[in-house]
Structures are given as C-alpha cells and as structure tokens.
C-alpha cells in the first residue's frame, strides 16, 4: 500500500473537475502517476481522492494540423510524443525532451500534462515547451481558459493553476517552414537521471528569431528574452552575449546533483553546444540562412 485514499476514474473533464471542486482541496488529478505516487509514498501524506482522467477521450488525443499546430492531450504518454513523426520533424526539441524523461517504462506512463503540472524546475519538457511558445488549456468548475506556458510556472512545484483546475491539453503553434529546435541535458549518469541542467532552443532561419530556455537553474524553468539574429555574428560572440543574459536570469543552487558554481559554468558550455546545433558548426546567423 502506498497510501490510504480513494480512487475514481472519470470519463469527462466536467465530471472530474466537479469531483475535485467538491473535495475542498482533498482531491487531486491523476494522469500517469509517476510523480504523484512517488510523492505520496515518500511523504506519507495522501490526498483523500485521486481522480483519474486517463479515460477522458480528448485528454488522450494528439492532433496535428498545419494551420492550427499540434494539440497534445494532457494524458498522452511521453513515449507517444517522442515517437510522433510530426513532432520529430517540426518540434524536435519536444520529442528529444520527452525521450529524455526517466526510463522507457516510466515514459509509457508519464504524461506531458503531468510533467508540467508537477512543475519541477528540472522538468525536461518545460524548456522545450517554452521555446516552442506552447500554451496550456485548463478547465475548472467555472469553465476553461488558456495560459501561455511562460506564465504557468510560478515557484518550485507551483503553477498559476487555481485550486480545482486541471490541464486538459497543450498546444504548440505552427512553426515556420524550416524550423530548427533542439534539447540538451546534462545528467550524472547516462541511463536515466534528473537534469543537472537542461536546455532547449528554437531558431527560425526565415525570421531569424532565436529563443532559448534553461531548466534546473532557478525556481522555475527560465525563458530568455527572444533575440533577432540580424547581421552576421560569430557564434562565439553570440554565446558570450547569451551567456551574459543567462547568468543574470538564473539563480542556481547547490544540491545533490551539482553545485551552483558548476551549473553556472555549464550554462556557457551547453549554450555553445545548443547554438552550434541550431546554427551550424560554422556559426553565425548568416550561415544559417
């Protein structure tokens, strides 16, 4: 027994939200459970009720559409995202981030909605969703609303979701015809581990817009200000410029995985690696066009 609680499997968002609202904070939404069940077991504190949304059809759909973008139901397992052809071709950072979470077995259960609702500063999918400009649809007893992902994370394991609200899906807007995005992660062991740092980048060679996001270096994943790479800028100069911005934006801590000082040093290295991937080995925005 990992805890004492009750369980209900619901078949609609409305049914689930009504149940959560009726329990005055004692009920929580269950998707894959790979964070929630470990938390219950580790803390010895159980909610009164787990409301399982995995049977809600629309929360399990992954819909791709060239004009609308991609809509990923909150309960879609990470392996499904990692293997999806459209996501691999057009939103590669998210496919790579999904593939880096836990082990293959865990990714068959762990969901995209759960990974961001858990709101760990080290959540691997968060930097990818930030650079891809994702938005999150949420539902509660008072209706539905949409939150840009950059407004979702507020503190360590805290989000701007109101009590009783659940994430129903995550939308990625359409990307340019030649989108480039990538995700990288530094971890202690090769197999599977939480990130010492994770980082995602998105570059559109047609508009020359560049977005970078860093995880595991502050209380929330950090999206750096968007940069327009007009004119030629050698990659070393660009890395230095971005590193200066990043060092101001982050506030890493010493923890079991690495020291704050190591993380600060690593940001520079990973920025260089990621920008090299996005812009090409020779670097510079001109090269990429």
């Amino acid at each position: 027994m990992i805890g004492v609680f009750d369980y209900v499997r619901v078949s609609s968002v409305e049914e689930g939200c009504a149940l959560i609202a009726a329990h005055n904070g004692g009920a929580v939404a269950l998707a894959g459970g790979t964070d929630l069940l470990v938390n219950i077991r580790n803390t010895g504190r159980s909610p009164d009720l787990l409301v399982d949304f995995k049977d809600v059809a629309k929360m399990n759909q992954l819909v791709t559409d060239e004009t609308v973008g991609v809509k990923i139901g909150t309960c879609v397992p990470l392996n499904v995202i990692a293997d999806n052809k459209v996501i691999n071709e057009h939103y590669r950072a998210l496919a790579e981030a999904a593939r880096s979470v836990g082990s293959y077995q865990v990714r068959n259960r762990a969901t995209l909605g759960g990974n961001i609702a858990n709101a760990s500063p080290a959540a691997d999918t968060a930097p990818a969703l930030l650079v891809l400009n994702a938005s999150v649809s949420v539902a509660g007893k008072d209706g539905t609303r949409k939150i840009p992902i950059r407004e979702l994370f507020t503190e360590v394991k805290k989000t701007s979701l109101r009590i009783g609200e659940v994430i129903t899906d995550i939308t990625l807007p359409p990307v340019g015809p030649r989108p480039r995005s990538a995700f990288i992660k530094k971890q202690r062991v090769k197999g599977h581990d939480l990130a010492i740092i994770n980082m995602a980048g998105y570059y559109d060679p047609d508009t020359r817009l560049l977005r970078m996001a860093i995880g595991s270096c502050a209380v929330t994943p950090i999206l750096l200000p968007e940069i327009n790479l007009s004119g030629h800028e050698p990659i070393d100069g660009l890395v230095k410029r971005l590193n200066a911005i990043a060092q101001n934006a982050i506030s890493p801590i010493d923890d079991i995985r690495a020291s704050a000082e190591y993380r600060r040093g690593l940001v520079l290295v990973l920025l260089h690696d990621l920008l090299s991937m996005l812009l090409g080995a020779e670097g510079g925005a001109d090269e990429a066009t």
Partner: protein
Amino acid sequence: MKLHEITLTVNGTRETVSVPAGMTLLELLREKLYLTGPKEGCGAGECGACTVLLDGRPVTSCLVLAVETDGKEVRTIEGEATDGQLSTLQQAFIDAGAIQCGFCTPGMVMSARALLERNPHPSDAEITEAIAGNLCRCTGYESIIAAVRLAAERGEK
C-alpha cells in the same frame, strides 16, 4: 477501507479481485495472485525490477495502481514459459550468461520481450535504450545485451 472490484487478464487468465485504491499493481501480482517474479527494488520507478507488460507495453508496476488496471491485460515473467519450456528469450539469457543473482532478470526479460515485439531486429543502441530502466548489479550489461541480441538472432519476437 473501501475496496474496488476489478477484472483484469494476467498471463491469459481472467482474474476478478477486490483491491484498496492504495494497492499497487506489483502488490496485487505478488501478494494476491502469488506471482512473485516481479520484484520490488526501489518502489519509485528507478530500478525496473518490477517491470511487467500492461496492454503490451512495459511499465514499472510499483508505480501503477491495481485499480487502474481494471479491464487491462498484464503479462509477467510467469507468462514466458509454455508447458514447462523456457521461451527462446529466457534460454538466450541462460546461454549468454546473463543471469547471476536473478533479482533484475524478470524485469529485464519483460523489457526485452516488449522490445523484440516492437522491433524484432534491434541494434545494440536500441537494446541499451530499452533496458536503461532496468538496473543490474551483478553481470553487468554486456552479457544481457548479448542475450537479447542472441534471442533476436534465434528469431524470438
């Protein structure tokens, strides 16, 4: 404590059981159905010793609630052998010397089983990725990778 009646198929046999919501699939398998092949190592989805197939996909059964498996199909290491004959995959583990203490083996075999079903001819990199969630502290991974490769060569799928 409220009990939930669930019906699931385990290694081809339909089972109807009453479980509390806080019982894991691993506890159901080991303590109510007496299938003690799946092991509890970490209880947190890190070690893979409890790996079973849920509707054909490998999962860590310590992180699945029994009540979540109502209507689903579960396969464990006990479903590998038929009529007392080891499966080709099990025999390959023996022939490649991929067994020592045996604690990780039931989970390792189930991860390999799922891999060969979705990809009958995996590369070494694909084998490594598939078993990255199964920790072994005895044989090392080389002999286990060799065992999965051997099973694939012998036509296991």
